[in-house]
């Protein structure tokens, strides 16, 4: 690997297909990325862009059928998660990779106390006794900023507010000191003031615990505030990848550019009219033979409809490590 072997997670050529009655839906197409130790990778995209399916495929959370992870390697350390047995994968989930889902109400079990749900992975993965697990659970709740933790362990999820439930989910995901935390739209269901609390919490925990985080969202504002590096997905593919400041300062892909323009801002001059991306995101019913964005792109030309672009670096660093984009169009091509 170009900058040393410090990637904790390395995904290459991941393909996931859903078999439906209407045919196969190619939800994820040759997605490659890596995650360095202590890094926060933001994944942005609209619904249906394949961002959640990609992350679920990594840790075998998709029901099969209908899902089918066809190709690719997912290296966590020196193990390929797509090749190991279901039992081994269970040991990875929770212990090595923590997962926080979008909706904290549906991802907690309503009939068990919060305490028993935090203690479960501790007993299962770390082999603690009940008493040890309880004291660790109290520490975890305090870590995520829930006061009166010892008494709160006895409460049920419905007695918690939305923001507190999400804190509990984060506590569970962190319980076994995972190397990687995958957070799938963890703040989307929350109000802005609560969202700000959770973002601050995650920033603080990162400094304290130094784990690598993948943060999935459709909110570019959240990404701007929290990520080190950003990966933009569209139509099941990675269309652009760059360090966060670079991406917002010099977006390359027409989709990223348009997306940044459609969002109204709180500051600066107020546009008389919003920029619009006409049309709808595609449903990939076959392996794409053209650029998935070609029907909505302002810069489309023949080659886009003939050939699906591969990611190319736009600086000297290799693809995946600097700024890269999957697009045939360049400012020069517009002239030619």
């Amino acid at each position: 690997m170009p900058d040393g072997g410090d990637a904790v997670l390395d995904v290459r050529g991941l393909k996931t297909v859903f078999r439906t009655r209407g045919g196969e839906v190619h939800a994820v197409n040759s997605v490659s990325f890596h995650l360095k130790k202590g890094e926060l990778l933001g994944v942005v995209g609209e619904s249906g862009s394949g961002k959640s399916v990609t992350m679920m495929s990594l840790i075998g959370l998709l029901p099969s059928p209908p899902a089918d992870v066809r190709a690719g390697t997912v290296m966590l350390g020196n193990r390929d998660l797509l090749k190991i047995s279901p039992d081994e994968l269970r040991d990875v989930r929770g212990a090595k990779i923590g997962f926080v889902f979008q909706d904290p109400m549906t991802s907690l079990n309503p009939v068990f106390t919060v305490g028993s749900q935090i203690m479960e992975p501790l007993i299962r993965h770390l082999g603690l006794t009940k008493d040890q697990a309880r004291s660790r659970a109290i520490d975890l709740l305090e870590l995520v900023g829930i006061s009166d933790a010892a008494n709160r362990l006895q409460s049920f999820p419905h007695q918690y507010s939305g923001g507190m439930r999400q804190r509990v989910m984060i506590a569970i995901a962190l319980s076994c000191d995972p190397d990687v935390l995958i957070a799938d739209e963890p703040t989307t269901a929350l109000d802005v003031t609560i969202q700000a609390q959770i973002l601050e919490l995650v920033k603080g925990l990162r400094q304290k615990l130094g784990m690598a985080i993948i943060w999935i969202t459709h909110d570019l504002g959240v990404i701007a505030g929290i990520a080190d590096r950003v990966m933009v997905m569209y139509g099941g593919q990675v269309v652009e990848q760059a360090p966060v400041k670079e991406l917002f300062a010099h977006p390359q892909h027409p989709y990223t550019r348009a997306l940044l323009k459609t969002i109204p801002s709180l500051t600066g001059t107020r546009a008389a009219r919003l920029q619009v991306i006409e049309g709808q995101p595609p449903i990939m019913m076959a392996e794409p033979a053209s650029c998935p964005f070609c029907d909505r792109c302002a810069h489309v030309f023949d080659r886009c409809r003939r050939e699906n672009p591969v990611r190319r670096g736009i600086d000297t660093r290799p693809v995946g490590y600097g700024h890269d984009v999957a697009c045939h169009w360049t400012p020069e091509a517009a002239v030619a």
Partner: protein
Amino acid sequence: MLDATPAPLVKVRGLKMYFPVYTGILRRHTGDVKAVDGVSFDILQGETLGLVGESGCGKSTVGRALLRLYDLTGGSVEIDGEDIAKLSPEALRKKRPTMQMVFQDPQASLNPRMTLAQIVGEPLVEHADLSATDRDARIHQLMDQVGLNRRFANRFPHEFSGGQRQRIGIARALALNPKFIVCDEPITALDVSIQAQVVNLLEDLQDRLGLTYLFISHDLSMVRHIADRVAVMYLGRIAELSPRDALYDRPLHPYAEALLSAVNEPDPNLARRERIILQGDVPSPAKPPKGCNFNTRCPRVMDICRSVKPELAQVEPGRLVACHLYSNIPHAGSTGGPEVYEHLQQGVNT
């Protein structure tokens, strides 16, 4: 806003909407959820008033109460000169065409067994006396207005995307030439790239048809784009009501300030600025705190906030704020509107 102020189309005074709570075996009335507790504002002809706040603050309830989808607990709602809170069912039915609603979830607000033409045509069947050919012509005209292809007239809602479904909802709201439309989070369920399409459509229609909107949303940056004035609600009451630019440049109420500071700007340099992080959660509207309802989370709370409820009062021309921080500031000039002053002995700690 212009100085030659147009007449208000909608006048809301002391609107209250309580939902009773019954407990025990005898289902005794033990309390009320005060979803909206004394809200007053005007919406001028042709204006868009943005109504923002967190979930549970009562903003959707205000929207529904304004169209009398609920029977009000108290207060009055005057639309186009008539107090709809007092109208008889028959008179209310005649009034309905002037006031319409666009709902949040286009999936749930369209009947899955009706075709687009039936959905858009239903209000015409109910309220307008049109022949079948005239009705079809009107349906087609409405579809053109919202940018739906006429060939889609006989399709069902599931055959459309989210953005198209929201266009159907808008066409239905427009069918009877309303003057006033309540847009209850019309873009929340849509993807970012589709949101802009729907917002532009709403703006075009307003320009062309002279519509007046109440635009309910929790997306502060989108409200900045579409609204002329903005009301910030917290726990059933209005915390601040200001012209758009004044509010976004310099919010006066501490809650409005915290809310704006919590928004994530899509710019890595801005997004990493210092923010005001509010502690705790919104209290339950069944047991609102005594005094100012924001006192449990307010970073600038004073003693008086825990005992006396601040009234919404004009602190600068055109800006109404319900906060004790501003209640002893002598104010310059008067343009009318509710003005209540609390004369305090304590100094204001800022």
